[in-house]
C-alpha cells in the first residue's frame, strides 16, 4: 500500500462568500478574542494556503453539521 500523502484540515469553515455560515464567523470572532491572532477561514482560504505550500491537489468536503474538511494531496 502506498503511503498516504494527505493533509486533512477540518474546521467550522466559513463559506467562501462569508454570508451563510454564522457559526464559522462567530468562531472567528471568538478566536480573535481568545487568541493573539487566530481567526476562522473559508475553504478557499485554506486551499490557497495549501497550494502555496506545494500541495498539488486540494478540495473541500462538507462533513457533519457545521464542520467541513479541506484535503491537500502532496
Amino acid at each position, binding site marked *: 500500500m502506498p503511503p498516504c500523502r494527505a493533509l*486533512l484540515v477540518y*474546521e467550522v469553515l466559513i463559506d467562501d462568500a462569508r454570508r451563510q455560515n454564522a457559526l464559522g464567523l462567530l*468562531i472567528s470572532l471568538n478566536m480573535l478574542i481568545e*487568541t*493573539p491572532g*487566530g481567526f476562522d477561514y473559508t475553504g478557499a482560504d485554506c486551499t490557497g494556503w495549501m497550494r502555496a505550500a506545494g500541495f498539488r491537489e486540494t478540495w473541500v468536503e462538507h462533513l457533519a453539521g457545521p464542520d467541513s474538511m479541506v484535503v491537500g494531496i*502532496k
Partner: protein
Amino acid sequence: MHRHESDITLGYAGERKQLQPLFHQAAIEPAGEGINGGRTLRGREPLPAGTIDPIEQVHHGPPGRRHQAPGLFTHCRFRAPSFLGGSSHSRVAASSMVRSPTLSIAVHITVTKEVTSSDVMGHILHDWNLEDKKMLIAKAYAALPRPAGV
C-alpha cells in the same frame, strides 16, 4: 517515531507565586520549532495534575514571541501533556489563556512530535494567525512523504 516533548510559552502578568499552583513544577526553556495546534483552557482551570512533566529549567526572559502581556514571561519545555491525547491531536499543541483580575496567563504549547505519513488538523488552524497557519501547513507538507517517482 514520535518525540513527546513540548515547548510551552507561558506569559503571565502578576505575582510569580500565583503561577505555581497553576503550572505545578513548571520547568523553563526557550521555545523551539514544531507543529502547533490549539486547546483553550477556560477560566482559572489548572492544568491536570501530572500533565506537566518538566524537563529542565533554562531561562527567565522578557516577553515571549506571541504574547504581549505585561510582566514576566517564561519559556518552558515539558513532556507532552496527556490532555493532548494519543491520536492526531497529540502532535499538535495547546493554546490557552487564563485570566483573572490579578493574573493573566497565556500558554502556547508546541509539541515537537514528528508528523507521520498523513496529518490531520482539526479545529487547530483557527487558533493561529495567518503567518503561523501558513507555517503549520508548510511543516505538514514537508513532513509528508514525497509522491511516487519524485
